């Protein structure tokens, strides 16, 4: 008597009873989680109809930065390969997209392919190609040495972008950002129903959701477990059969793909690319996003990116409260200095007191209630 096996089913009200491996790995495994994520999504999609364009622009920048931060987290947080070269990959993505979608008759290189789908994919792929080129370094180097070498990438890139004026427009001049057109609709210009900011906001939000879910899936798959093994101890990982070369190349490729797409989106939103902006500071900002948000987490990357992007908005308000702080860049104590100091303090503070970042703060908060009425 053989009867077809029923699909293992979860028992109601027993979130910790797993009757199958798939259920164990489910992303949204409990009803409260599903409801919370749904609520969050509803709020995120409702925001463009609540906030003014100025705020939306800032949020959109945060979303795009979040894609980049997730990318950095894949290689640094999940696979444990510290890289300072993230700015370089952002630049590759930005210039690929700008060149593809640019005006063929313009001052700088342009091919007039302004379809978002095309240039976004191309930006990711070209960046990923460079990632693969760089990856072999990571199979030879570890930790600080890898960080130093990837730092070299940033300087190489900075030099090339400054010199290659046909592409970048040259230092101090720059070129226009990518032109986003989707279904014949120019996204960065006001339309019949939505303003340009609203359209870009929605597009970036959708992209962020897609990229975040992809990253989460990567992390909980075989690849993600291989990354974690390499992060925890590469020698041990190779002993248990994880091919270091294969997975390090994969990590760099995925990470730079994310960075390329993020770069393309970022400069679509700002609308202008200055070749000098892809410097060490930009890389450090992304490292800060990952560290402040939470190493090895997707939601942490998003939190960190939003935090770093929205921070200037808060510090710009400072002169109103503290009259000795000036908003003039030439003043002895100005908001820009405060911002830089704040980055440093935040990184030091988080590393010392909450190494798991904002995500750790959330986990701590959640566990306080989860362990109720006990403490563990």
């Amino acid at each position, binding site marked *: 008597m053989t009867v077809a096996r029923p699909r293992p089913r979860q028992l109601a009200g027993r979130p910790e*009873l*797993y009757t199958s491996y798939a259920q164990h790995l489910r992303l949204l495994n409990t009803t409260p989680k599903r409801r919370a994520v749904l609520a969050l999504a509803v709020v995120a999609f409702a925001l463009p109809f609540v906030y003014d364009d100025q705020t939306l622009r800032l949020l959109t920048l945060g979303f795009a930065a979040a894609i980049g931060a997730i990318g950095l987290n894949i290689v640094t947080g999940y696979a444990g390969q510290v890289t300072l070269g993230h700015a370089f990959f952002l630049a590759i993505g930005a210039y690929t997209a700008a060149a593809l979608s640019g005006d063929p008759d313009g001052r700088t290189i342009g091919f007039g392919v302004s379809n978002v789908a095309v240039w976004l994919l191309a930006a990711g792929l070209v960046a990923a190609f460079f990632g693969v080129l760089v990856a072999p370094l990571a199979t030879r180097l570890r930790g600080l040495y890898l960080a130093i070498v990837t730092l070299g990438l940033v300087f190489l890139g900075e030099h090339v972008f400054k010199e290659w004026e046909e592409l970048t427009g040259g230092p101090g001049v720059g070129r226009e950002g990518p032109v986003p057109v989707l279904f014949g609709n120019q996204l960065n210009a006001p339309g019949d129903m939505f303003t340009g900011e609203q359209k870009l906001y929605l597009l970036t939000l959708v992209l962020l959701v897609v990229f975040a879910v992809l990253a989460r899936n990567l992390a909980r798959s075989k690849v993600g477990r291989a990354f974690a093994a390499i992060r925890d101890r590469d020698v041990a990982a190779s002993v248990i059969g994880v091919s270091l070369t294969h997975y390090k190349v994969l990590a760099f490729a995925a990470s730079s793909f994310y960075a390329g797409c993020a770069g393309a989106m970022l400069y679509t939103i700002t609308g202008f690319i200055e070749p000098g902006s892809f410097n060490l500071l930009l890389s450090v900002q992304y490292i800060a996003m990952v560290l402040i948000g939470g190493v090895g987490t997707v939601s942490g990357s998003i939190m960190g990116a939003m935090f770093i992007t929205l921070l200037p908005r808060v510090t710009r308000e400072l002169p109103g409260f503290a009259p000795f702080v000036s908003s003039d860049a030439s003043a002895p104590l100005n908001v820009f200095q405060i911002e830089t100091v704040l980055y440093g303090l935040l990184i030091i503070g988080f590393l010392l007191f909450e190494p798991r970042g904002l995500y750790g703060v959330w986990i701590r908060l959640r566990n306080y209630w989860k362990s109720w009425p006990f*403490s*563990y």
Partner: protein
Amino acid sequence: MSVAEATDARTRTTTIATRIRDRARDTPRTVAMREKDFGIWQEVTWADYWEQVTLVGHALLALGVEPGDRVAVHSENRREWLYSDLGAVAVRAVTVGLYPTNPAPEVAYLLSHSGSKILIAEDQEQVDKALDVLDQLPDLERVVYLEPRGIRRRYDNPKLLYWQDFLAVGAAHRDEHPGAVDERMSQARPDDVMTLVYTSGTTGPPKGAMLSIANVEFAITKLVEAGGFTSPPPNDRDILLSYLPLCHVAERIFTTWFNASAGVQVNFAESIATVQADLREIQPTILFGVPRIWEKILAGVNIKLASASPGKRLLSRFWLRVADRIGDTLAGTGGNHTLKTRLWYAVGWLFLFRPLRDRIGMRKVRYAASGAAPIAPDVLKFFMGVGVPMHEVYGMTENSAIATGNRPGRVKLGTVGEPHDGIELRIDEQTGEILTRHPGVFLGYWRNPEATARAVDADGWLHTGDVGEWVDGTHVKITDRMKDIIITAGGKNVAPSEIENALKASEFVKEAVVIGDRRPYLSALIGIELDTVGDWAQRRRIPYTTYRDLSERPEVIELVQGLVNRVNERFASAEQIKTFRMLPKELDHEDGELTATQKVKRAALSERFADLVESMYRTPPGGRA
């Protein structure tokens, strides 16, 4: 289908095996049981279950098992335990359960006394116990092992057979003789011995109580279908955790019989050590526990609350006081909420009771039962207060556990409840012994007619050996085991278990043994609970190394003295403990101090710790312990 129907017509006697077969036919795809394997609770449907049972049945037939032959199972609770048990019942063999903790000499005694033909042993540990004494076991023909690790390709004893090979033998036999198991099953008669349940035996060697198919069927009507142990009666949506030894009649009822007769989904705990974690995952709806388990869970709650953050501690302390008051009210009303307790409970549910019950795995428990040993009413009251419907039940192997039970809404704390409907139970006027008479009374002790004659008299009354009294004419209160009653040198009768349980209600006390038979006054040997006292000592920065060292710390002795003093206040002068000593070690089954069901062997204990006992009577009481 026609084959099954034809079999049905021929089968006149319903057994637990036919019940499983019918479930496999009616609801083949419903879940019958789960067992955790690499973190995943693997599900077994009724069709799978019956398939395995028939394979085991065929394998037993192939190995030449005749009706009435004994098949021993020596394993922790797991799927194969049930497959073996049911397979044996299907071919009219007799299942004999062995406790996984049985040491080798006891295994030798049980296997030789029962004359088991086949032994199904879990792993190398249990196989070794049998192989050590193989020359004393002429009847033992095969040893089937479930876990091959350490056995396969290392042991070359020709009697060994791996479980998978055993099933293959069954499959081959089924191909050759299809329907052989069905045929044997249809010959089953109500007075067939179905299982031998060896009682743990606090005095003398274990005795094998013979339970017949009719006994078990009667137990199923009374305890399962009439709601004797779970009211309202269990159904196939109920979920149960199987964690106590299956060779004990209580767990056999809750696991095997509940499952076969009501379709309750059985989940096997990974081990007795992981019960608390398993409870949290499974969140059973029906929960049976022995006092030790309830005491341990209560102690765990207290430890964890004591180490919670101040805010949480403050809140939970307040709500536990409320729970205490609710428990008091419920104890007075028989378990029925009043409007006031209901309101208090509803608010407390938000703050403490819901999360607390979730953490201890009792959020969905609709009926909890305590039995198999006496328990302190305070422990039961705690669980009632936090909202776990707790019921003390009473029964013993010899009457298929059919005697009394507290019913929802008519709970009387400190009693074991009312006799089940349709059974006879009386208390002997002279001796105060509880006697029962009903179709669940066992057939007798295996190969021990003298003991049988002592247990069941000519009129069919079973002498339980428990002394009891009526409370309000409806409920039975058990004073103690008859043979445990202490008569002091002053001629006073004292029931030690009441005093012992009052002591054990404290989370710091694991064992308490009251001594005083033919002595001038009562004394006690007390064993501490290592976890809780260790935690207590750590928080007070009292250094200690071993169990013995901790036991003998003056601070700990002072703590226990305080507990003893508080317990003494509740008893008359002759029943007070005048002095006590700390047990220097944790009592253990392997060392012969406890029975397989963790009951103290008094005789063995007073022999082993004779010098401790004597020292209490050399110095006059009142001197420091």
